[in-house]
């Protein structure tokens, strides 16, 4: 069928590289529309471009040149990659050992914290100061929360946005911005939304988790996705309770007022940044303590082998619900901060897309690795902020999701444990991929009765 010369490994790799480059060309090209459905394609391949600034040609020429370079690198790597990698890991072994020492880690974390505190003064630019809150800090908060569910407990939750929405709506409710009367009959300050939000999301986590977490992994994913959709539908349609599709625009800025201390957040983003940073630090501490506690060990046991865990007296459902509720708490916080910083909320911000975006942050850094997730979230969110702020030619905002989709697949193929994996997770993944017994829920061979 296929000519033999095409089946030779280097040629096959060249074809793959060419295919990938063609796709890259397409997704970086100009958009089309349903009236001119081919304009995206023709524009992507036939548009004029400068050949790396040397002479003018068409985009495909530039990209084929790029493909050849990429192919060369791939060929080089297949031939010499193994040696380079083994030398590299020998060279890195020393630093890696040092980096795992406790004082080094604590020192590193403190340095990062100082950097985090100084950051708004370093960037000193209105867009980036606000982006630090709306693009970065909030998303870090969400990502470390979802990491508890996906990374620690190994549960794929595609409805995580529901908890964020509950946090935001609670803020609106507590401050009297919804048609529903606020608690105790009179509006409270937005700051008081935090305890309410935490209680509500934890309750929601338990209510949602208790029935659904009995399900197998793939069913759980689809049911949580359904729940996320249901929440959006309700938020959109219950005009009398949520304000319907127009949401609300009257959420006041928070005020912290205990005794003589009074602080009012205003329009400026930097104070919100510190509020969010404080929450991030709080949850980082909480989650790393949990990870190292017996709860964390029980999560690991369930994730690795649920049947064995149960044979040791661990109640899987209880610990899964716990992960759900604990992970939800940080989303609730994020919801409060977003709603009170923005002063408005719309149900259209709480969709499946949002849940997936958070999932991407978790996966890029490395499921289960707190530091990895933080770094991953910062990288992606900064790129996103940059692209939205100064979009390159032909770039539209939703294009980001194309890259996100491609990134998810690429990560799963080449680096399933993430960029900065937790040591244990990396071991887990390589272990059941190399073991002859396979993993209990391995696809294709996973029918163990």
């Amino acid at each position, binding site marked *: 069928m296929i000519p033999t010369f095409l089946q030779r490994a280097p040629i096959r790799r060249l074809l793959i590289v060419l295919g990938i480059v063609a796709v890259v060309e397409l997704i970086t090209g100009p958009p089309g529309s349903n009236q001119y459905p081919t304009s995206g394609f023709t524009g992507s391949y036939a548009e004029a471009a400068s050949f790396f600034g040397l002479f003018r040609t068409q985009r495909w020429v530039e990209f084929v040149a790029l493909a050849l370079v990429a192919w060369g690198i791939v060929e080089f790597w297949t031939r010499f990659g193994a040696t380079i990698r083994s030398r590299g890991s020998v060279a890195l072994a020393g630093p890696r050992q040092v980096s795992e020492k406790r004082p080094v880690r604590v020192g590193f974390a403190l340095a990062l914290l100082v950097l985090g505190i100084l950051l708004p003064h370093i960037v000193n630019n209105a867009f980036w100061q606000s982006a630090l809150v709306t693009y970065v800090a909030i998303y870090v908060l969400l990502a470390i929360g979802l990491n508890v569910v996906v990374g620690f407990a190994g549960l794929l939750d595609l409805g995580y946005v529901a908890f964020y929405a509950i946090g935001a709506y609670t803020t609106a409710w507590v401050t009297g911005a919804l048609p529903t009367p606020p608690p105790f009959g009179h509006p409270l300050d937005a700051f008081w939304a935090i305890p309410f939000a935490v209680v509500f999301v934890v309750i929601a986590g338990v209510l949602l988790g208790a029935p659904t977490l009995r399900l197998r992994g793939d069913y759980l994913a689809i049911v949580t996705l359904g729940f996320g959709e249901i929440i959006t539908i309700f938020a959109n349609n219950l005009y009398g309770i949520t304000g319907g599709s127009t949401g609300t625009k009257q959420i006041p800025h928070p005020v912290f007022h205990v005794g003589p201390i009074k602080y009012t957040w205003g329009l400026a983003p930097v104070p919100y940044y510190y509020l969010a940073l404080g929450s991030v630090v709080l949850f980082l501490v909480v989650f790393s303590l949990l990870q190292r506690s017996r709860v964390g060990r029980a999560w690991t046991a369930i994730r690795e082998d649920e049947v064995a865990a149960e044979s040791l007296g661990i109640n899987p459902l209880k610990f899964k619900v716990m992960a759900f509720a604990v992970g939800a708490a940080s989303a609730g916080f994020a919801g409060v901060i977003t709603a009170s910083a923005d002063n408005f909320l719309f149900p259209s911000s709480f969709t499946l897309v949002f849940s997936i975006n958070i999932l991407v942050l978790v996966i890029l850094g490395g499921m289960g690795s707190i530091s990895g997730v933080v770094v991953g979230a910062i990288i992606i969110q900064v790129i996103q902020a940059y692209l939205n702020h100064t979009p390159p030619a032909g770039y539209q905002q939703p294009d980001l999701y194309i890259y996100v989709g491609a990134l998810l*697949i690429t990560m*799963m193929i080449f680096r399933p444990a993430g960029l900065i994996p937790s040591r244990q997770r990396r071991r887990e993944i390589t272990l*059941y991929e190399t073991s002859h017994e396979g993993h209990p829920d391995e*696809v294709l061979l*996973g029918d163990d009765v």
Partner: protein
Amino acid sequence: MGSFGHYLATHFDTLKAEFWFLFVGGVANGLLYAMVAVGYTLVYGVLRLINFAHSEIFMSGGFAGYFVLRAMVGSTVPAGFMSVLIIVLGIAAAGTAGAAAATLVERVAYRPLRRRRAPQLAYLISAIGASYFLFNLAGKEFGHLSVGDPQPYINHTVFTIFGAPVLMYDLIILIVSVVMFLALDWLVGRTRLGRGIRSVAQDAETASLMGVNIDRTIAITFIVGGALGGVAGFLYGLNIGVVYNMGFVPALKAFTAAVLGGIGNLRGAVLGGLLLGIVENLCVVFVQAAYIDVVAFGILVLVLLVRPTGILGERLGRTA
């Protein structure tokens, strides 16, 4: 309590009056769900995996059909032989596009993971990535706004059942889906290919020892399920129009249908699709249109919690 009784009484009156009308629409929807559900079930049967990207296969079919219609339908609505020709071409294009998209997903997002014997979580994430990539790429190339399909036939009432009109559209769905289900039943039940699919579904390891080419069988399963999903996307688009994220809700419902009938069970998928379509349509009487999707998801959650093996039970190998 009295007012609730009154509410039920009046709504049941409406239900009685509108029953056959809603029933016909429900069957048409249900058959579309069933065509998509079959794709989930086939892939689940051989891989024990929910193909999250199936919604985009549906979408590809929708767009392929749309472009055929755009090219073929002029300023007047065609009739007679021309209508049949256009619809057949649309089906062919949609089926091909669906099969191509499914193959692409299998090759790029699943096969490398299968080679590595990756855990289930990795497949799910990779599938979500594929879905995300495809529908957003469609959004970039074809715009983010919904567009109606040009009508290739006059959608008149062909005949009536108990006073309820059956439109040309309903009839087309009925004919196309029944033909495809019969063909599928024959393919899986009677041919060598089908035996391969069933043996992989039952026990992949043994099947491979018996000389069944697993890679090829899986590829064919994706092609068959993809073709059906693509055609369903085309038929859906005829009525609703096409847009980059058109696959999401119908696919979620089709998944519900597959679970309802017993995932991995082909006849179950058809039964589940029909049931879901009809129940959903009848619910229009009781709940506002905006909450119809909630009904479907509610059914999904309920089935998964109460009887996760569905009505007819799982197992492609045994019951197909």
